[in-house]
């Protein structure tokens, strides 16, 4: 009799402990979320302007730049990847990025597998299917998944994007359509020094080069430079170890001076690449330093011109 009461008491106590734990858990979570929300409300959204602007989200900042140039003060542009220190291959979208995409009327991204996260963010919104989506790689340049995804290095990319954005913004805001067209034209005009420079540097016959990553690929095509080590570059880009034969090929290219210069993406440095760059320097092969994304404080035109200047020097064209 006494024993059974004790057992029952035990059971009741276990249940009590158990329930207390749940309650404590819930309270602590509520407190935590409470803190979070307070923090959120102290940063009011500054986007409450008098004239509603067209919200444009660009996956990468070099597209955001075009959108700003074409849209002028009629658009509010948010560029998600705008820090050259963030590896675009390992980006996990934050809540702010998701919010920006959810609210956007126009979305610009690369597509063709480069920024898959943007695909997901666009698809996560069912109610607002009115977004205008421009995938630069597939929509404007006719590339497909599996092609070199660094399409912004293609000299045709930005002019085409400017034209498309003028069209899209003109549909959303017909009263200003002509302005968008004009601004797109002047943006493209501002890029002519760049296209002239490319035409000047273009080689009459294919010139062999090697690269640490395929980043520079489309610009190399435009300059009639031939990438000799696509497999090596692809392995580095994917974060894999390149296989031994590919490394040996690159080393031989350098030692036997079969290449004019080596293109080094300074945003991805791993021991293999470091060794190759040192080998190139000690063999007198010029190293052209490029970046995958736009450096802080430079615009697209300055960024590309700076890289073309290096190429011009190594080719002996001043």
């Amino acid at each position, binding site marked *: 009799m006494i024993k059974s009461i*004790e057992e029952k008491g*035990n059971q009741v*106590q*276990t249940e009590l*402990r*158990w329930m207390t*734990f*749940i309650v404590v*858990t*819930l309270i602590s*979570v509520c407190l*935590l*979320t409470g803190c*979070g*929300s307070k*923090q*959120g409300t102290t940063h009011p959204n500054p986007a409450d302007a008098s004239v509603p602007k067209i919200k444009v989200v660009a996956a990468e900042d070099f597209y955001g730049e075009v959108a700003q140039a074409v849209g002028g003060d009629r658009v509010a542009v948010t560029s998600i990847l705008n820090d050259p220190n963030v590896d675009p*291959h*390992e980006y*996990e*979208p*934050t*809540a*702010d*990025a*998701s*919010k920006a995409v*959810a609210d956007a009327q126009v979305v610009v991204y690369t597509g*063709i*597998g*480069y*920024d*898959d*996260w943007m695909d*997901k*963010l666009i*698809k*996560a*919104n*069912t*109610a*607002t299917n009115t977004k205008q989506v421009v995938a630069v790689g597939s929509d404007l340049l006719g590339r497909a*998944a*599996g092609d070199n*995804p660094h399409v912004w290095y293609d000299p045709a990319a930005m002019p085409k994007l400017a034209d498309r954005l003028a069209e899209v913004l003109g549909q959303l805001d017909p009263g200003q359509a002509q302005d968008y067209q004009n601004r797109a034209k002047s943006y493209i005009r501002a890029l002519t020094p760049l296209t002239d420079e490319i035409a000047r540097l273009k080689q009459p016959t294919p010139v062999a080069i090697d690269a640490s990553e395929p980043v520079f690929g489309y610009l190399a095509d435009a300059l009639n430079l031939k990438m000799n080590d696509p497999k090596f570059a*692809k*392995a580095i*880009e*994917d*974060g*894999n*170890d390149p*296989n031994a034969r590919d490394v040996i090929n690159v080393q031989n290219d350098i030692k036997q001076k079969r290449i004019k210069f080596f293109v080094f993406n300074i945003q991805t440095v791993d021991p293999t690449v470091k060794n190759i760059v040192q080998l190139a320097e000690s063999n007198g092969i010029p190293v052209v330093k490029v970046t995958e994304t736009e450096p802080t404080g430079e615009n697209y035109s300055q960024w590309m011109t700076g890289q073309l200047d290096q190429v011009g020097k190594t080719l002996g064209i001043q």
Partner: protein
Amino acid sequence: MIFASMLQYDFMQHGFLAGTFVAIMCGAIGVFVIARGLSFIAHTFSHIGFSGAAFAMYTGMDPLNGMLLFTCCSALAISQMGLKILRKDIVISVVLSVCLGLGLLFLSLSSKQANAISSLLFGTVLGISAVDVWKTALLSTAVLCILFLGYRMITFDSFDPVGARAADLPVRFISMAFLLLLAVATAEAIQIVGALLVFTLMTIPASIAQNLTQSIWRMILLSSLIAVVGVWAGLVLGFYTNAPVSFFITIVEGGLYFASLGWSAVRGRIHPPDLVPSPASPNEAV
């Protein structure tokens, strides 16, 4: 008020729905994962899924099919080779190494970008489409139904393996079937929340529940509840602070685990397990 501003976004609604389903499924199945000493395997399957996705990319099939192929084959291999308890960890390590190696091979053979593959590791909780929500709901329900149907057998075998063997239960079959179920659940859930979260939600909530209760039903309920709490807290904190949701979920679950450890230590000091607490000896409570 807080929730209204957050839930006006489709991606948050989808995150809450899919996250809740995945949490309940992982919490429930996790109880058996912990009881069977398989927490390492939950981790393994997440990474094997990565190799499967690489294989799928190389051959051009749907990534989900590639992941299912790899995780199910590994489940069969492990259950065939690793029946002796002592060898289990070694077999799992070997299978994991081989699969990761194969994954690297397929990545280098394939001409496509590896970005889609690396996004599988962390998932995109804030980028779940409506279709994905439905898929997750169906998968979780199916896994829970199968668990429910086999509940008696799997509970007996998980919590009293010696007794189950003595009672002539088909232990070999049970262990294989459970591994297969785990393989399917992991492969599907990875697509939604990423490998890190699947592993977190399958092991931590169940370990907490085990610290707090002896009853298996309560363990399952508590474990699912803790998993759901973690996911919700992660989504809310992620929404307001802009840090990754996965980070908050892992940190909340980890924090709860340590709290539960402290809790059971305090409880053990107040009421030593083999002594019945009696009001006559208050000194013991100090």
